[in-house]
């Protein structure tokens, strides 16, 4: 198991990237995984990596896999190129032993490889465990006979009763709002004005009137005032509004 094709959920959440990118990235769990895969594919000696070739392959792969957006892959690519450059430097054939620029990379690859070995162990153990089920049933009701329940049916019924009592209308509230009835209000106002030439707002609107009725009356009044059917007056602020039928319209 090299991690190829395994899901990559943990990393994926980090990224805000187009889906295609995420899908491709899921093939490798990181730049070391990709590097190790290349080395295996090419059957290279990990202690003597032909760095120029590997760097080239690595770059090619991150381009074709569109991994070049992930910083970690780019960082590894840069590292490979740097090592490649260092390899090209002339070696001083002096007394000092040559410090192989690849040694750090080799160390990391070995370390990573070792970790992959542990991953294999864990993966096998995890699969073995996944092939068995534990007890899933949690005894909500404990043992059947006379087992104390956390919640009894009578408690539930009491809750139902509580709700039904505190709810005004046991059927669901009609959410369709009532439309304002302006023509209706106008005919009411006309009827009142026909009886009395002068009337008060409080006569037109009952104290228990619902908002839509208040609104209908108000709109009706305004409409009637506009066409000159009545006059609306308020002697002083907050005083009761007086409505008088217009003499002209009355005459008409």
């Amino acid at each position, binding site marked *: 198991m090299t991690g190829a094709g395994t899901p990559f959920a943990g990393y994926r959440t980090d990224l805000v990237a187009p889906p295609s990118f995420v899908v491709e990235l899921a093939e490798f769990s990181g730049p070391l995984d990709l590097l190790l895969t290349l080395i295996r594919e090419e059957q290279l000696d990990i202690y003597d990596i032909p760095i120029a070739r590997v760097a080239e392959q690595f770059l090619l792969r991150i381009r074709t896999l569109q991994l070049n957006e992930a910083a970690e892959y780019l960082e590894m690519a840069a590292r490979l190129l740097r090592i490649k450059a260092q390899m090209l430097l002339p070696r001083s054939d002096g007394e000092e032993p040559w410090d192989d620029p690849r040694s750090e990379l080799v160390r990391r690859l070995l370390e990573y490889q070792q970790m992959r070995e542990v991953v294999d162990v864990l993966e096998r153990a995890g699969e073995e465990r996944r092939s068995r089920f534990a007890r899933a*049933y949690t005894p909500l009701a404990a043992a059947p006979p006379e087992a104390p329940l956390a919640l009894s049916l009578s408690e539930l019924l009491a809750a139902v009763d509580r709700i039904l009592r505190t709810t005004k209308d046991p059927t669901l509230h009609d959410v369709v709002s009532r439309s304002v009835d302006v023509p209706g209000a106008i005919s009411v106002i006309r009827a009142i004005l026909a009886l009395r030439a002068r009337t008060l707002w409080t006569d037109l609107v009952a104290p228990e009137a619902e908002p839509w009725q208040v609104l209908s009356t108000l709109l009706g009044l305004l409409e009637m005032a506009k066409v000159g059917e009545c006059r609306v007056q308020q002697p002083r602020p907050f005083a009761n509004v007086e409505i008088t039928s217009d003499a002209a319209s009355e005459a008409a």
Partner: protein
Amino acid sequence: MTPLAKLLEAALFASARPIPTEELAALDAEASKAAVAAALDELREHYDVDGHGVEIVEIAGGWQILTRAEYTEAIERAQLASRPARLSAAALETLALIAYRQPLGRAEIEEIRGVSVGSVLKSLHERGLIDVVGRGEGMGRPLLYGTTPIFLEYFALRHLEELPRSDELAVALRAEPRPL
């Protein structure tokens, strides 16, 4: 034990809910109904005759393995099977509403209860007592909730019709609590 009985045993143990007889039969496509019934009998007898600490019980139209009552106290004392938490009043009332008026949307519940019920719905759903049963009409096509078989199991009801009708409630509430 026959292989079929062993399969039933494993299934009863692994299932999070009681398994209806038809589902037990579906475990092995090649087994006849009679063979499954025989295997179930074999299994029940095994746990009966041997005097085991668990037994196979029929509940909510299905079968499950339960610990014998005489061990419940010791197990609970050791807190091995954590005791179920009590439902809050908010959760209880929401559950009651859903039980009686399902399918029911969140907006209606909130209107009746006068409080927001988002987290209550979530916890009832997590406990498996309610589930989404459809979508309502209207703006946003709201999710509609209903009770689940776990709800029935919880209250040891065979079906929803066993709940008293709302007009029988007063009587039901005065009556002695039913042994569950």
